[in-house]
């Protein structure tokens, strides 16, 4: 959903597993929808880790743990690998996450998030490890993501890092514009390319 990004300060949901693939984020059977109903996808985020086959919640899973909540998901290395399904980004957005923090993201999923106004924030492995420890010690730990200044701060320890975001995407996120808005303005350039 198009929205303007500025400064986000929130508690976090920790998922300290590596190589979380998009089949886990949203299993293939939920890909049969022909509409982009983020609520539907959000309700089925991490479906098979979150619910048993009979639909009852798996108590140990973090999304079912009342101690954790917020607009920031903190995940282990190589988050979003595998299938290109954008439904994974829709599920994350639909659940209510605006930011995902990890030390490493899979490429396609990272683009899909940005195209859906979910900000992937890449931090160093040390920052990530410390953040997991902070959240474990105190689930009320907050993180501040400052998009204009491209910094992320663990408010429990005060540790701050800069993160990468190209100037174009930053402009899009801060002004709620998407790539299609931009490309539609480029018709002249496209035709010039085709005729060259």
């Amino acid at each position, binding site marked *: 959903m198009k929205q303007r990004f500025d400064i986000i300060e929130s508690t976090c949901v920790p998922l300290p597993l590596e190589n979380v693939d998009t089949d886990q984020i949203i299993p293939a059977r939920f890909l*049969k929808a022909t509409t982009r109903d983020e609520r539907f996808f959000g309700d089925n985020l991490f479906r098979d880790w979150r619910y048993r086959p009979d639909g009852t919640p798996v108590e140990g899973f973090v999304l079912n743990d009342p101690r954790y909540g917020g607009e920031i998901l903190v995940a282990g290395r190589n988050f979003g690998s595998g299938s290109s399904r954008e439904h994974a980004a829709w599920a994350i957005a639909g659940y209510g996450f605006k930011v995902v923090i990890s030390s490493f993201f899979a490429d396609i999923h990272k683009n899909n998030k940005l195209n859906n106004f979910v900000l992937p924030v890449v931090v160093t492995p040390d920052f990530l490890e410390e953040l997991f420890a902070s959240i474990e010690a105190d689930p009320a730990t907050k993180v501040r993501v400052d998009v204009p200044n491209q910094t992320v701060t663990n408010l429990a320890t005060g540790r701050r890092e800069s993160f990468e975001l190209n100037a174009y995407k930053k402009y899009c996120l801060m002004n709620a514009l998407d790539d299609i808005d931009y490309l539609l303005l480029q018709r002249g350039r496209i035709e010039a390319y085709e005729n060259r």
Partner: protein
Amino acid sequence: MNTLFDKIWDAHVVQHVEGGPDQLYIDRLYCHEVTSPQAFDGLRARGLRCLRPERIFCMPDHNTPTEGQDRPIQDPVSRKQVDALAANAAEFGLVHYGMNGPDNGIIHVVGPEKGLSLPGMTIVCGDSHTSTHGAVGAVAFGIGTSEVEMVLASQCILQQKPRSMRIRIDGSLGKGVNAKEMALFLMSRLTTSGATGYFVEYAGSAVRALSMEGRLTLCNLSIEMGARGGFIAPDETTFAYLKGRPHAPKGADWERAVEAWRKLRSEDDAVFDREVVYDAAEIPPMITYGTNPGMGTAVDGHVPTLDDIPSEGQASFCKALRYMDFQPGDLLLGKPVDYVFLGACTNGRIEDFRAFARLVQGRRKAPGVVAWLVPGSQEVRRQIVAEGLDRVLAEAGFEVRQPGCSACLAMNPDKVPAGKYCVSTSNRNFEGRQGPGSRTLLASPLTAAAAAVSGVITDPRDLL
């Protein structure tokens, strides 16, 4: 700027967006039914038509059942998605190869087979295995649905240029070892994120020696190392494969095209951001034991022990073994197998069926094993019949089904039940990939055939 990747990419840059990505022109967009409906909705919401409909080809593959395709799809949700693609293609004036028609099949099998994917092209599809088309010497990669919408609307996408990586495999492959093992071996060495951020050029004598089918398999699995895509510079093997294909250039156009394609190679002094080299002789028949494609080992090898795994990966490793119900150090040979799947965009081509048939010829399917043999396209199915492979397979107790993605991803009736083990020639062994609770062991067509006739994990070299 002298790698083949640079040459193709740079030739397609419409503009460098200031402070941002490249605006890249796309020669070919493929659409399947799963990742396109919301993109077409987006066009309607914005009141747009496709800018270059002649560059776009649509076909359903993920939801299509692999038997009874002459009848309507039973699952109403699947049927709706397949019908939506047909309706969208008609509304926007796009070519559509419908289910059970003579041209249908898995998009990544049909594209090269029809000569729609050609050297030097940029090719995208809302599917991570679009990297397959790199086998013809194209820059091909998977995209999300928003990006599908971008291409439908503008024939362009905005994309940060990936870095370049060359993987050289020199020497000769051993007995019973093929392109699938090459890929599983690379993933086991590089991990599923080892090539993230890179576009891979495969090179070296062992890669050059691969057939087009082998090259399609190798490039298909590039994404499983995290790579944006992977390709092989076109050569005589490529030209011989493409010549005479329905959409390949004809006559004098063909001669001119081949002349241009011969220039599509990395220069001798090309500089890659990363380069790795392997010896083909090191590569054994491979199989996976875990829940990502990088968790692979020699088919006659063991599940690793915790000592082999770096500390930050141990939680995921233990979770994977619990899911698979394997113990650290287990020997894989002799483990029982319930299902065997030959097919998918990875191994659903004629050569894969030839390999499988060669191994099972004169043997019988093991009792208790359910085997799904699913050609990647109607064309592959016709070829199986023309070569008499269907008879060889039938004598051994195997039936050839109708084309589609089948048991690769549990979006159609071919699902592996919870707790069952499937030796599968597909591309992913993620939790639940072949059905909730299913346990997938990725392998080559030969290893799948060996499991199918013995009912247990078997080294195919013992049966060749």
